[in-house]
């Protein structure tokens, strides 16, 4: 990390997406996306912004591949990726990731869908390793993309002995990503987050990451969190910043907010299948918008209305009374932008 960004005020951690990427990301970092499964919620817009700002050589930690890692891999921004699943479920193989792996440009280190949350849990607890009774005996243990000549791999999931029974099990390495960019459905300006849908591994990840940025579909008044404190699985005490970016999960789904854009899921994946298609996709859907309004216009007004007309919309009914209006959110973010510019000038240190 080139600089340590000054902390935002505890009662208002809202900043805009570009500022969040500028402040909390750097080339070569360990970057984790806090997402659900490939068709579910993930702040794919955060990945688009990483590319807009030219971030590269990233070491990505994704519980599952999503269109975000598919895009980052296809665009050549990832050197390494560790994940439990590398497809797109019903949308097939992830073409951008596939191209990058098959060409040798991207080293993909395979784990399983339980191994990844266990590794986040290990990082969160500051454990030296996490014992595992799965992944052992299979080639997830025996082959490592990071040590291709060492077969069987000795350092990936080394065997360890259970001191009680004497049985041989495996040791998983804990993960402490430099940043977790976590999609939440609702956040308040302080950084309390409510997830609608499967948490997948966002609870463990939020405690494992050195820094956490929330990307929320809706910003709510803190009274909402006081009404449902049991649902706040990510509390403000571990959050650096909150970004409001509607449809950040597009073209994937955000339960309660919008459905998956099936046409764009397919179109995006098809584009990522070739270098030419990827270049065209990047020009239009990564570098082709100047701000949030232009991003939303790219998705299309009618399309957004159709996607938001989801049968899951009732899931948000209890919370709607606390939604903050756009003007208020933008005013809070603008206040921080002005504040941090002044502080940055005073505290920034050279790399």
């Amino acid at each position, binding site marked *: 990390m080139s600089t340590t960004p000054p902390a935002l005020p505890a009662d208002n951690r809202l900043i805009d997406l570009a500022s969040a990427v500028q402040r909390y990301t750097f080339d070569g970092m360990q970057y984790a996306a806090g997402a659900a499964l490939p068709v579910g919620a993930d702040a794919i817009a955060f990945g688009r912004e990483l590319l807009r700002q030219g971030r590269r050589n990233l070491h990505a930690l994704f519980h599952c591949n999503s269109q975000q890692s598919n895009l980052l891999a296809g665009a050549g921004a990832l050197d390494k990726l560790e994940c439990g699943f590398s497809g797109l479920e019903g949308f097939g193989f992830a073409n951008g990731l596939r191209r990058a*792996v098959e060409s040798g440009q991207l080293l*993909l280190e*395979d784990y399983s869908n339980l191994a990844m949350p266990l590794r986040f849990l290990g990082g969160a607890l500051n454990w030296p390793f996490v014992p595992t009774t799965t992944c052992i005996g299979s080639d997830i243990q025996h082959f490592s993309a990071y040590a291709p000549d060492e077969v069987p791999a000795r350092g990936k999931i080394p065997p360890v002995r259970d001191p009680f029974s004497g049985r041989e099990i495996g040791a998983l390495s804990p993960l402490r990503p430099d940043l977790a960019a976590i999609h939440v459905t609702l956040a308040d300006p302080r950084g309390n987050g409510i997830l609608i849908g499967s948490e997948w591994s966002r609870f463990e990840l939020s405690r494992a990451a050195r820094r956490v940025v929330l990307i929320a579909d809706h910003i709510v008044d803190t009274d909402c969190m006081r009404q449902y404190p049991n649902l706040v699985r990510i509390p403000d005490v571990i959050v650096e910043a909150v970004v409001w970016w509607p449809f950040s999960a597009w073209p994937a789904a955000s339960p309660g907010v919008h459905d998956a854009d099936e046409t764009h899921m397919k179109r995006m994946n098809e584009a990522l299948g070739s270098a030419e298609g990827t270049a065209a996709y990047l020009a239009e859907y990564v570098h082709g918008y100047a701000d949030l309004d232009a991003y939303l216009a790219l998705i299309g007004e009618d399309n957004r209305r159709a996607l938001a007309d989801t049968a899951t919309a009732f899931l948000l009914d209890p919370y709607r009374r606390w939604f903050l209006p756009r003007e208020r959110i933008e005013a809070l973010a603008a206040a921080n932008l002005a504040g941090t510019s002044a502080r940055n000038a005073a505290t920034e240190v050279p790399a």
Partner: protein
Amino acid sequence: MSATPDYTRQEMMAIAAGREIRDGELAIFGVGLSLLAGYFAKAHHAPNVRAITEGGVYGATPMGGMPWGIECNRLAVNATSFTSGLDALGFLVASGRCDFGLIGAAQVDRHGNVNTTGIWGERPQRFGPPRTRLTGSGGANEIACGAKRTVIMVSHEKKRFVEQVDYISSPGYLEGGDARERYGFAGGGPSAIVTTLGILRPHPETREFWLDGWFEFSSAEEIRTATGWALKVFPHAGRIPPPDGEELAALRQVDETGMLRRKG
């Protein structure tokens, strides 16, 4: 061999896999074919099956078409609990609590080891990039290690039924015999490979998969030809009953978009 049946091979495979599920079991399904086989069982003979997905989306019945994924809004719409991967795959599956799991395969070998990770052309000596990258394990490794019984569903083609898989993503019986016991897995391993042509089951001692039965449109000879190892046939092997009217009606009620009827 009868006249052209009024159901597809995909439908027969889903029904045959669904028949493996018993009422009241805690069962984990994936997307696509696996979900249809599971919900077929629930609609037909296992109304009290307790179905979960690895995403920790519980209590849901698909609505509005085939879910694109296991956290698709088509499942989230009527779920009664949202938890996490650690819960579903860890607490309920790797722990040994889950009775039954259904997994798919790009390649499967004579000991029921599954590859969904990549195609190298053979088992790699050096672990370089694959010729074709696939999806990786996902939660199938946990199901293969932890579920009391696992059923593998796979289209019966010679390129998929290989002597040795290029990569073991999810363990079957490893090298066969008692090899699996070295690892003390909570789960018992694959109890069947259900294919588009028939059903293979493990020999009780060698744990090699033998032919247990063929569908009415298939034969032992066709299956041996489509299998990449010298497939042995259990003495009791025979024709598996075709779907009856109630089974087909239950499956088609679940497969409302006709996903399984598209392919012959």
